[in-house]
């Protein structure tokens, strides 16, 4: 469940298991990286499932961010020419997706929510000696 949440919304899985501060860091950093890439490459050209299939596989690991970019790009009509996105933009969005894969593995390694709450509390890890 936490892994699926993390895939859909980066950082949400850590919220779910009680590591809220960690979740906020992942959420902010991955969102900034992805949308920074979209700002460089343009919303119509950065996420392209057909033209850049391998990069799209990485981009889609950001979940809602990639789907939102696809949905927004479909709002534009195709009458205006679509300029190719710079490779830097595609790398930014792809790296954001790959970072979220790392976050998914991290949330899986931190165990189930019951264990996390029992050892760290709902507001995140506590100092040694705490319950």
């Amino acid at each position, binding site marked *: 469940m936490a892994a699926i949440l993390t895939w859909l919304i980066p950082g949400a899985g850590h919220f779910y298991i009680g590591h809220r*501060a*960690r979740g906020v*860091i*992942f959420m902010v*950093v*991955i969102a*900034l*990286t992805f949308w*920074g890439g*979209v*700002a*460089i*490459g*343009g*919303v*119509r*050209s950065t996420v392209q499932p057909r033209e850049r299939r391998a990069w799209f596989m990485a981009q889609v690991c950001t979940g809602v961010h990639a789907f939102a970019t696809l949905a927004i790009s479909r709002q*534009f009509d195709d009458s205006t020419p679509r*300029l*190719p*996105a*710079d490779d*830097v*933009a595609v*790398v*930014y969005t792809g*790296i*954001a997706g790959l*970072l979220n894969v*790392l*976050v998914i593995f*991290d949330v899986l390694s931190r165990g189930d929510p019951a264990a996390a709450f029992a050892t760290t509390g709902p507001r*995140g*890890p506590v100092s040694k000696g705490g319950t």
Partner: protein
Amino acid sequence: MNIVLSSLYVDPVELEGWQRLLLLLPLCLAIAIVYKTTKCDRLRDVPLASVVLWITIVIGMYVVGVGLFVIYELMA
């Protein structure tokens, strides 16, 4: 302001060589922060560890880039 922001997100930005090199910095910072946030047990250790990793990655990447450029120039 809105026009600038909307045009930023609609049309691709044309980047020159040195601008691409500069854009390596925030990307490496993002990688360093996410990696160290997964590795550090205490979150207060994350900022310093991220900065150290960030500098290491940036210097390493630029050294590799300069090395490859020198090899390319020698073979040309």
